[in-house]
């Protein structure tokens, strides 16, 4: 249910993992590579992971969700390697019997991914490249609830 892969991600496949006969709602989050970040034009992205630990931390997020929303079923696939604009970097699928829980649990998952999963993004522009994350001036040691963090 929790996968780090170098291959393109199939939304249908991740979704199928969470469909249940008694869950009428599935919410997907699909993160794609965005061309403009803070006005700067991205040409491509490279994602590097610490794969074994990243997989373990995705699983931990699944466990956290099941504590908070016991009926939720969660699957997450994150891609690594070089991605082009509009390529899919991550798919999160959550099914629940009631749809509000699926939205909430899914949003919880993406916030937590950005906090605790050891994956790093390098942006390539026309005039250079940079690992994202190293310019943050704050400690990201994970504890408790996710903070409100804007998507990069």
């Amino acid at each position, binding site marked *: 249910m929790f996968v780090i892969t170098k291959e393109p991600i199939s939304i249908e496949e991740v979704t199928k993992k969470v469909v249940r006969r008694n869950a009428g709602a599935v919410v997907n989050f699909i993160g794609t590579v965005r061309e403009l970040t803070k006005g700067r034009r991205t040409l491509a992205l490279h994602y590097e992971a610490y794969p074994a630990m990243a997989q373990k931390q995705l699983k931990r997020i699944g466990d956290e969700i099941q504590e908070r929303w016991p009926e939720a079923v969660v699957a997450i696939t994150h891609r690594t390697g070089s991605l082009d604009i509009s390529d899919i970097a991550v798919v999160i699928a959550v099914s629940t019997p009631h749809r509000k829980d699926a939205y909430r649990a899914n949003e919880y998952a993406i916030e937590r991914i*950005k906090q605790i999963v*050891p994956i790093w993004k390098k942006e390539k522009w026309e005039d250079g490249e940079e690992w994202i994350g190293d310019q943050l001036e704050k*400690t990201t040691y994970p504890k408790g609830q996710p903070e409100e963090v804007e998507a990069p």
Partner: protein
Amino acid sequence: MINVQCFAHLRERLGQNEITVDHNRISVKNLLEELAETYSLQTDSFMVAVNEEYADHDDIVKAGDTVALIPPVSGG
């Protein structure tokens, strides 16, 4: 000897996937201090993973553990 895995800009900056510290037991806090000094790193925002779980500053790292330095993440 404890081997410490490095990723992303840390790996590029050090020019290697792994660095070695000459201890058999060391606290996470002391490990970070030693790496900061030896490699002139700003480790304030780094986490340490021991056996693929985040470790506290008081935790003890032992030879044979799988250890990694985790700079701020940017996946998702």
